[in-house]
């Protein structure tokens, strides 16, 4: 009676989307506009492009090694000791990413809905929720992402739609941005927002036909990228490139600035924040899941439930390190860019070495049986 334990390509696409859209969506327009003013949409596009390349490398590797995740085939490509170092780095990086994201989340909650509740409480409750979710098996974990997908996409689109009433097209011109516009750093920081999508490497081995992963990953990047573009465009069009620099979370301000006609609800920001909790939860869970899996490989342990509990205090301590929101964003930028070197560079090296050494994974399916009959 057991339902198929394979993950379908649509489910992978859903996980990619819900992993990508997370905490970053609130600060996104500011990051994009900070250095490139009206060129913000262009910067976002660049960022999406960088993230796309990184994930493409990862997916190609996944197709080449259809039965393993990056933590496993890394060992076969560049050897155990080196892969061990990289796996550790990946696990540590994703723990750090989780910690920073959950801190950012805590700051938003404190400033928007729970003004007198300490940030620590929000962080702890959220992390407990994440730990409870990441204890599950991969298939159930995928179900969470699939189910919450509408709750992630709909509020974002709704905000974009209702903010159109205040939009000024002039705020978006010139499209390439006023000179001097620097695209580089903004694009990299935005690309870093896509990092939880790294989870595809864990999903591909669970798929029936890993070759189809490329389709789901393209779809996932396309949908989440479109939402990001729309939000950046809407925020810049409403506030203008200079005003945005003074707003900590422009997307939240978008929600705050809009009212729905009919006077039933005066303020939308609390509702938006609350629904946004879901997307934070899914993307936190994704990056935490990656780090747990990586750590499992590093420690050579089978008990991922134990590791999931074990890391909780570390995440909490790391999350409390930045002294304020401002230092938090400095951390986020640095960690994001270092992480890009890891999440794009490492797969890149692996792919090159794999191509040169002509290492291949076992084909999917019942290869062992085939070998026996041969």
């Amino acid at each position: 009676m057991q339902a198929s334990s394979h993950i379908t390509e649509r489910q992978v696409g859903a996980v990619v989307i819900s992993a990508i859209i997370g905490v970053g969506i609130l600060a996104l327009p500011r990051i994009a506009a900070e250095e490139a003013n009206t060129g913000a949409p262009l910067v976002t596009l660049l960022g999406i492009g960088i993230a796309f390349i990184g994930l493409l490398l990862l997916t190609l590797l996944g197709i080449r090694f259809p039965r393993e995740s990056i933590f496993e085939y890394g060992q076969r490509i560049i050897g155990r000791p080196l892969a061990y170092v990289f796996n550790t780095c990946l696990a540590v990086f994703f723990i750090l990413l989780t910690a920073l994201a959950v801190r950012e989340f805590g700051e938003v909650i404190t400033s928007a809905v729970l003004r007198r509740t300490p940030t620590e409480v929000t962080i702890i409750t959220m992390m407990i929720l994440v730990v409870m979710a990441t204890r599950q098996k991969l298939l159930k974990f995928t179900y969470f992402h699939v189910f919450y997908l509408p709750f992630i996409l709909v509020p974002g689109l709704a905000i974009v739609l209702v903010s159109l009433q205040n939009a000024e097209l002039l705020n978006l011109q010139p499209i390439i941005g006023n000179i001097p516009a620097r695209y580089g750093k903004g694009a990299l920081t935005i690309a870093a927002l896509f990092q939880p999508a790294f989870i595809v490497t864990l999903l591909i081995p669970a798929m029936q036909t890993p070759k189809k992963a490329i389709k789901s990953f393209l779809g996932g990047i396309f949908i989440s990228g479109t939402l990001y573009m729309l939000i950046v465009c809407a925020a810049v069009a409403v506030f203008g490139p200079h005003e945005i620099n003074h707003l900590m979370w422009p997307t939240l301000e978008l929600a705050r600035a809009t009212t729905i006609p009919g006077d039933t609800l005066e303020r939308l920001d609390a509702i938006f924040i609350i629904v946004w909790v879901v997307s934070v939860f899914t993307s936190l869970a994704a990056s935490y899941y990656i780090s747990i899996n990586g750590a499992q490989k590093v420690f050579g342990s089978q008990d991922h439930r134990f590791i999931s509990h074990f890391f909780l205090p570390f995440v909490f301590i790391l999350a409390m390190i930045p002294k304020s929101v401002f230092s938090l964003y400095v951390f986020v930028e640095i960690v994001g860019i270092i992480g890009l070197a890891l999440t794009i560079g490492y797969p890149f090296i692996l792919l090159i070495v794999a191509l040169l050494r002509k290492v291949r994974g076992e084909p999917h399916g019942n290869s062992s049986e085939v070998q026996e009959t041969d």
Partner: protein
Amino acid sequence: MIRFRNRKKPQKNPNLTTRRTPGTPEKLTGCLESDLMIVRSCLGDSDDIEIRHLHIFNEFQGVIIYYTTLVDTLSIYRDIHKPLMYKPRHLEDKSIHLDNLMDTLMNETLYISETARVSDGADILDAITEGSTVLLIDGIPGGLVLDTRQIEKRGIEQPQTEHSIRGPKDGFIEVLDSNISLLRARIKVGDFRIKIVRIGKRTKTRVALCYIESIANPKLLKEAEKRLSKIDIDGILDSGYIEQFIEDHPYSPFPQVQNTERPDKATASILEGRVIIMVDGSPFSLIIPAVFNQFYQVTDDYSERFIMGSLVRFIRLLAIVFSLIFPALYVSIISFNPEMIPTDFAVAVAGGRAGVPFPAVVEVLLIEVSMEVLREATLRLPQQIGGALSIVGVLVVGEAAVGAGFASPITVVVIALTTIGSFATPAYNAAISIRMLRFPLLIAGGMFGLYGLMIGLIIIMNHLLFLDSFGVPYMNPVTPVSKQGLKDSLIRGPLWSFKKRPSHLHTLDDDRLGYEGVPKAEPVLQSNKQGE
């Protein structure tokens, strides 16, 4: 979500039919006196046991044993005593020996349709306690079991817990055979199968698995049989006992087995490829596997036309959501985010709460608890008093509580709406679990406002997504998505669009419909002048 260890079920003595009470003899000897001694020692000196000696055809010594309280006495007199004592005319010139006596009795003498020869002492005792009459004959080892069971039963009435506006009005009763006949009358195919097992060391309750062999998944069936066979308990008094032994996650607040009193619902489930478990002595049949969707669906949805059916179903789902989150939402908005609601209304709410001595969460909690007490009291009281109680409880106490400044009018409105919402859920077991879950949500909302409410909801949702019922994901067909299943979930699609059975049941025969597309109606009554 919260993952529970699989409960260890008792493993010993898996074979149900050979379970015996202690001190039961193995075999009957054939010597009437010693056999009777054995039977007497096992049945003791109950006053309702009848051991009647008789001379069969004036030649053989025999005895019939039965419980007077379980049998049809008239049938025993007419169909057993009479033919045994008066040698029937067609046997008058035949000579009957001890060797062929049993066959003659079974085939030519007794007017009882269900007869069986048994030699095991335990089987004979089982048969007697079941309501059969046992005939023992001197010189023949073993006896003859004659079905003379007659049990008092009530008539078939409209089910009390599941009303329907349109659709069949009959409901299951306590007698298993009548219930099976209700199903058999509806499903007229040969491969509709009934498998009966006996569960319960002392009650030996008959438990029937009903399914259509060419539809139901054999794995599901095997799993159900396996779980049933592991039950080792003194007595099964209701199908609820069985449910608690076979469900996947006993610590979950959500029911993973559906129950119904309605034969039409049971039939529909069987046709979908599910398995029905019926228990002798309980009017509730169990439906496995069950997914969350089933708990807000009723048979009326399918009887009415599909647009109306969908709308009504949607309202019911809304009622579930209402009954779950409404109090928590109210508390968290009032105490944490009053800026969300329009200023005029916020002022009115604050005015209503002016004299209330507690914070909003305590106030709502108090009224909620008293509402639950009231609901329980109304349920337990005789129907005649129940009405009076609800008037006194709701109208008088509610009004007085507001007047006394104990609660604000809006709180009372919120609680009333919540309670009504929870009564709109058709499945009582699902309604109760949701009603209970709103208390933790309320506390979370009172502590952390909307954020707490959301965290609570995510925990509940994650738990639902994690649940399984007999290997079927509980949130199916919403997650994992099944296109065919979605047609019969939030909305109730047209019957002619249900081409396949629910895919999550992995049925042997998928097809429900014999044709494709919308059925077209021909305009028969249109006037056709040329033809006249």
